[in-house]
């Protein structure tokens, strides 16, 4: 019944939309051709300013933001009974305390003050002890394969001379990740329970993920003070959103039968959440945990710019002196930490309850292991007083592959530069430049018209108003041209990244062997600091848009792969069986069953690809683009809060426009398919 009604109404309006688009195109083409007559429409308008000094005597959006911020850090803004600044400094102290303890354990050792103004320095935990313990933990959680992997990863840090930096990095990660996971999950649960709350936080999540980090770095520094705490705060802001999103999605996709079962046995709301929903959604939640870890480690480099030190600092310092190999080694160390942390948490989450024992391990047995671990750590650390080997891997046995990588890049550079240049020039002249010119030439009223129309068609009047007001913000703050360059650069990159990513995801979902190497590959790509591959990219492709595009594609690829894989895998095997028995060919299975059922996840993946691409913007500014990312970067270096946040918000609004339109399109399509 329903479908026939839908069909007839669709028939009725079948020609309305094409007609509307036709009119819109004609109008825009008209403006375009008569360019000289419509100067105001073709030229991007300047920043809107007003003469009357309203609202804290400011005359443009940018200046108002700066003014507001000055007010917040001044002594006049109160959150009873503190000033706002005192409040944030208090939060900072709460983060600082565990950080300092962990850091003392791992990296610097404790300084114990003694009488007479003297003090005594204890050594940090021995690398050997930590390696042994982590390996043992891995073995207990899963098997000897994981143990071997963990051992090799941790040993790499020692052997390649990255131990101390790694310990510093790990300290800030060890604080940021739990905060991100716990708060992310809690917010996600609230969002799942209260739909209104979900609607309220979704735009905030979008902002957190898409306002470039550099845009809020200066405010964060003002509020939390200079040093590791600010770095942790910025890391949490950046790494938490996927956890919230995935928590909500995972809770929603818990099968109805399980929820019904919970109700049937009379769960209270709290029991329902913690005893039924969360365990049932655990696999989904682990994707979130994975993302928090990966994104936190992604921030390592930027965090090191504001005082986190550690491996991020090593990478930057190496690249400064063109030591690509050394930078790569430190970068790989970051990746290895990510992999170890991720695999251990995954193993912990999916551990089988005591496979070797008939009975459950008693409390005593658990404590035995903990005790043993502590004993090893304390023992090796104590021995490190007398045996330097226990304190640090001997420097003369450190390995470095730095020269090899430098030579490799040099070899490629000398022998293949012309070929690479030919490919680059071809793409640049035939794809990038025309698209850029086209977007820059589009009259802005036309763009607004198209957006309004798309919003109206896909989601109705409210969506249309949202996208148009987002675009208008960019217009009146005078960022139109830079925004169009942003759209061009990210648009091309996202299309390429999504095409490659979905393809890889689909292929990997078919072959388990391939899947594992693909996972390692995208984990590496996501956690290997983009700075590491940015430099070789610049050497081979020169400073400019093309290098930026390559970097953005590499960075935005992982979510497309990951979500496609996750989407296809979470399809219930019985459905696949059913499809097979009803005689689907492999191709039909993919296009008619898997793709359609995985559609929400794949679209979430594309959505994330857009978000990632936009968050990479600032990094592309480091290779010299002229987009909003550069605007944000300039604002950072001038400590101009207003300019940075306005440009940052513009980036975020581009993301929101894209996201809302894609989501609406996906929803519409889902309805049409009757999913």
């Amino acid at each position: 019944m329903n479908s026939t009604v839908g069909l007839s109404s669709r028939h009725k309006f079948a020609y309305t939309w094409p007609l509307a688009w036709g009119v819109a195109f004609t109008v825009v083409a008209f403006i375009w051709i008569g360019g000289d007559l419509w100067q105001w429409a073709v030229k991007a308008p300047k920043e809107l300013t007003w003469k009357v000094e309203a609202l804290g005597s400011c005359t443009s959006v940018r200046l108002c933001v700066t003014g507001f911020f000055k007010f917040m850090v001044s002594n006049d803004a109160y959150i009873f009974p503190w000033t706002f600044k005192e409040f944030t400094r208090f939060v900072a102290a709460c983060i600082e305390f565990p950080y300092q303890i962990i850091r003392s354990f791992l990296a610097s050792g404790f300084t114990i003050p003694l009488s007479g103004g003297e003090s005594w320095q204890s050594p940090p935990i021995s690398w050997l002890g930590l390696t042994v313990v982590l390996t043992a933990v891995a073995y207990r959680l899963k098997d000897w394969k994981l143990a071997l992997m963990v051992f090799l990863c941790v040993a790499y840090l020692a052997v390649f001379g990255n131990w101390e930096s790694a310990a510093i990095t790990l300290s800030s990660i060890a604080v940021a990740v739990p905060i991100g996971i716990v708060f992310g999950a809690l917010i996600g649960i609230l969002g799942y329970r209260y739909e209104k709350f979900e609607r309220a936080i979704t735009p905030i999540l979008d902002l957190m993920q898409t306002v470039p980090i550099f845009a809020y770095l200066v405010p964060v520094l003002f509020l939390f003070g200079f040093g590791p705490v600010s770095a942790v705060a910025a890391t949490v802001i950046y790494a938490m959103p996927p956890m919230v999103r995935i928590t909500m999605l995972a809770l929603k996709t818990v099968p109805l039968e399980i929820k019904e079962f919970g109700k049937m046995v009379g769960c209270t709301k709290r029991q329902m959440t913690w005893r039924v929903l969360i365990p049932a959604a655990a696999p989904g939640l682990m994707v979130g945990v994975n993302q928090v870890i990966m994104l936190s480690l992604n921030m390592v480099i930027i965090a090191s710019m504001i005082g986190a030190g550690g491996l991020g600092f090593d990478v930057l310092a190496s690249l400064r002196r063109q030591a690509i190999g050394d930078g790569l080694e430190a970068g790989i160390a970051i990746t290895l930490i990510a992999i170890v942390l991720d695999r251990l948490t995954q193993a912990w989450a999916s551990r089988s309850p005591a496979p070797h024992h008939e009975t459950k391990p008693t409390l005593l047995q658990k404590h035995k292991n903990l005790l043993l671990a502590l004993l090893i750590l304390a023992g090796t650390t104590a021995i490190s007083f007398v045996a330097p080997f226990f304190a640090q891997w001997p420097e003369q046995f450190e390995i470095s592959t730095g020269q090899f990588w430098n030579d490799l890049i040099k070899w490629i550079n000398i022998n293949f530069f012309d070929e690479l240049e030919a490919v680059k020039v071809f793409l640049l002249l035939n794809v990038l430049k025309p698209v850029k010119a086209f977007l820059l030439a589009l009259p802005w009223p036309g763009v607004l018209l198209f957006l309004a129309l798309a919003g109206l068609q896909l989601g109705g009047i409210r969506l249309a108003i949202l996208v148009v007001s987002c675009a208008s913000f960019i217009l009146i703050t005078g960022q139109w041209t830079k925004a169009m360059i942003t759209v061009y650069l990210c648009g091309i990159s996202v299309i390429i990244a999504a095409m490659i990513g979905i393809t890889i995801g689909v292929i990997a979902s078919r072959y388990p062997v391939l899947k594992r190497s693909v996972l390692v590959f995208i984990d590496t790509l996501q956690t290997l600091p983009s700075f590491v591959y940015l430099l070789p990219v610049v050497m081979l492709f020169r400073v400019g848009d093309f290098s930026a595009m390559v970097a953005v594609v590499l960075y935005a690829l992982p979510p497309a792969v990951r979500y496609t894989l996750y989407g296809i895998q979470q399809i219930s095997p019985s459905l696949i069986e059913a499809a097979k028995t009803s005689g689907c060919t492999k191709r039909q299975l993919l296009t008619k069953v898997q793709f359609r059922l995985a559609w929400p996840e794949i679209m979430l993946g594309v959505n994330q690809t857009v978000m990632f691409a936009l968050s990479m913007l600032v990094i592309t500014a480091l290779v010299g683009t002229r987009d909003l990312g550069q605007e944000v970067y300039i604002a950072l270096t001038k400590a101009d809060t207003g300019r940075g946040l306005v440009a940052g918000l513009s980036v975020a609004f581009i993301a929101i426009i894209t996201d809302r339109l894609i989501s609406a399109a996906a929803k519409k399509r889902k309805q049409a398919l009757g999913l």
Partner: protein
Amino acid sequence: MKRLLQSTILAGTVALFTYAPIASAEVESTDPIKITWHDWTGQFITATLVGEILKSMGYNVEYVPADYIAQFVGLESGDLHVAVEIWETTGKDALEASLATGNTVDLGETGMDAIEEWWYPLYMKEKCPGLPDWTALNDCAEAFSTPETHPKGRYLGGPVTWSGYDDERAESLGLDYEVVHAGTDAALFGEIESAYQRQAPILAWVYAPHWAPAKYEGEWVEFPRYTDECYNDPAWGINPDMAYDCGKPRGWIKAVGWVGGEEKWPKAYQAIRNFTIDNATMAALIIKVDLEGQTVEDVVAEWLAENESTWKAWTM
């Protein structure tokens, strides 16, 4: 950092039960003086030199990695205390803005002289014999061009944030060049390295003290000499309608500190004011680190050992 660890171990082994004093009580305050570390070698060396000298006076010193410009926020609030290298060529505006708040204090010039200008490798002289005179640039625009900029030349400028007015300079001097901004120092020298490996044309922004002028044979372009009027007065110079029709200024490299340190560690601040080192010495130290692969700590320790009388005088 490794050294720190080693010395910890050393202290541990030698004096397992005799406690090593971390700081003597002679100084005004044993609270650590936080010196910022940026991300270029010369700055590491200067910061470590200053830090080690302060340590020898009995102060506690902490090195905090911080961004070159972002650090001013920390210096003003007292989260950070001393920055040892603010270049007139790149950090003048930020420094002046910061000093104007009254929360930071000028700790004087370090004695080094910042040089920055358009630069080309020596092998480009064959293709463009008129160099280093700037008037030759337009004749060789094609030699310096790439497929994207053809027929205009391509000049790779420094990061936009480091200012320098290169876009204005190109326009005001009527140069047929497209100014491309590298974004970061690393990207900039990445391209120079790449071009140098292939002996390919490149015209880029290079500064000193830095390892690059030592590693790559090259020269700076000679523009009309910089004067204050050139930047401020459009009428000055070749182009009567525009400013910036000259080369770049050369200038001081200063240290700056948190204003509260003046009272907290007066002797330390005085020592930083007395600190002075010249370009040649700094260049030699940078080369030891970046091209010969020694650690910053070793190079600094070596210099301190050899020049004890020099730096002892600063601490008096």
